[in-house]
């Protein structure tokens, strides 16, 4: 029997259900006449395990796990990594600096665009967005060490 996509997905959801039950240990289930804070989470966790099991048992209908396309995974991982750095820096550097660096990095590192167009584009769109939000829409954006 070859490994199917739904085998993996089913096992994942069974794991999620078991994890929720494990994390719910200190939450009181209560009684039917006075349900506690762990009552519904445990019911939903059991349902998740049940549906995960059904998914895994019927996995023969799904595509083989090896056929799940991952060609775009490198691109996705790089976008996530650069965005994560930007999120980490967001409150320190403020809206303008962080987003200029974010867009510049995405264009140069991932998209291999030339430095000058990437610089002009990243500064241009971020400044226009800043002016739009801060002045036209009066929605304050996160300020950096220089006050913007």
């Amino acid at each position, binding site marked *: 029997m070859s490994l199917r*996509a*739904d085998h*993996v*997905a089913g096992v994942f*959801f069974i794991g*999620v259900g078991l994890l*929720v039950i494990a*994390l*719910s240990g200190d*939450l*009181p289930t209560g*009684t*039917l*006449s*006075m*349900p*506690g*804070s762990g*009552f*519904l*989470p445990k019911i*939903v966790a059991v*349902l*998740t395990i049940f*549906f*995960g099991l*059904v*998914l895994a048992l*019927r996995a023969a209908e*799904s595509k083989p796990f090896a056929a*799940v*396309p*991952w*060609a*775009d995974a490198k*691109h*996705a991982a790089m*976008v*996530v990594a650069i*965005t994560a750095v930007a*999120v980490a820096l*967001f*409150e320190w550097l403020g*809206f303008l600096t962080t*987003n200029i660096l*974010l867009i510049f990095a*995405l*264009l140069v590192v991932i*998209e291999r*665009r030339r430095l000058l167009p990437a610089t002009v584009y*990243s500064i241009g*769109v*971020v400044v226009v*967005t800043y002016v739009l*939000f801060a002045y036209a*829409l*009066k*929605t304050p*954006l*996160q300020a950096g060490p220089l006050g913007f």
Partner: protein
Amino acid sequence: MESTLLSLAHGFSVALAPANAWYAFLGCLVGTLVGVLPGVGPLAGISILLPVTFGLNATQAIIMLAGIYYGSQYGGSTTSILMRIPGEASSVMTCIDGYAMAKKGRAGAALCIAAVGSWIGGTFGVLVLTVVAPPLATIALRFGPPEYTALLVLGLIFLAYMSSSSLIRTLLMACLGLLLGMIGIDNMTGHFRYSFDLAELGDGIGIVPVAVGLFGLGEILSTPSAGAVKDIISPRMRDLLPTRKEWNEAAMPITRGTLLGFIIGIIPGSAHIISSFLSYAVEKRISKHPEQFGKGAVAGVAGPETANNAASTGAFVPLLALGIPTSPITAVLIGALMIHGVSVGPTLVNEHPDVFWGFVASMYVGNLMLLVLNLPLVSLFVTVLRIPYAYLYPLIIMFCIIGVYEVNNSTVDVWIMLIMGVVGYALRKFDFDPAPLVLGLVIAPILEQSLRQSLIMSNGNYLIFFSRPISLGLMMISIGLLVLAAYAFVLHRTDWRTKLAKVEAGETET
């Protein structure tokens, strides 16, 4: 009826106030752009642009966000017809005959028929909404916790039954959403649940970071920039008007699409997607020339486009009358109103008449604006499509970050968005539709509270759901649907989901 007309007149006075009309216009324009851009669906668009409404009052905010919603339905048809790329999921069916018409030099006519059909569908939907929502809200005032529990259970089962992915997949997504919705302080006992000592998680996980992550960032991660550009057919202005023959061919599909779309719109689930698929199937089934479908049949554009707009409006009935979101998009709209201090539900019509009637009237105005705006501006939207995707997606990521951060000024929310983006990417790889997850997240607190209150009321007796007339009726419908779903599931019957998957894969057989 007289009071409804008077209230509607009041609504028009609110909607036509210059500031409100401006926000309706802005919403429609931005919504059309959102619909046009591949990778930015209406849900991500509304979520990302939510902070833009913070400086507005509640009426202006909902008018603008609703404009984005139905504007995106219009905009989705543009990319479907000109590029064979559905700007959003409900436009998948339009791709087939819309693009075929464009290849035959009838792109303008296809766009015009789609716009007129959308306008008729949308306006009819608002008309029925105007008449139906207030009395339904009056009935809903009789709802207690058992009725709300039964209604929400019915909503979840309907969602599973009607959703565009398989039954088990939908239920798993809904369960995951419910579990996420139970993170934070338990309202009834004060216990912290699954918050890992993070104070920011005390209030639970917000819908905006989850929706933007799953549908905005997740879509970007799944769309590598290489290969994202396709040929675009540019329509000429003089070709925009359909011929008399084309109008005749479109008339009945528009009428049928309007009725079908509105009825399906009221039902929870991916209503606008289902309605466009069903409309296409119906038109092909009753056509005298089914062989023309897939080769540029006018009915293949008119029916689905009308139906998905009528369904978008129909989805507002349970939202405004009951306070129940039937789709992730209406769930975000509820969240937006709550941010502005307005609780959505049966009391909305009496407690906030300006919001309710102003919003309803703005939909008439907005639909007309879209009709007038969209055709002359089609060249502008085509120009936007020429921007390389490599330059577009960094901009969208920036707006995702702004949109999420501005709701609570919290980077924890942005981290949640990033995690949800990765989750959304993985879910797509395994053919899961993330929409039920968002719906589960939104209804989790309401469902939990009403279920626990019902059990406390009945001293732990589950029969309370079967002993009150309204909840009994709702539970019986739920059981009926479960039986139907189990029948199809056990017998492996080919249902509409399988057919839709075939269409999306490029096969036109319905």
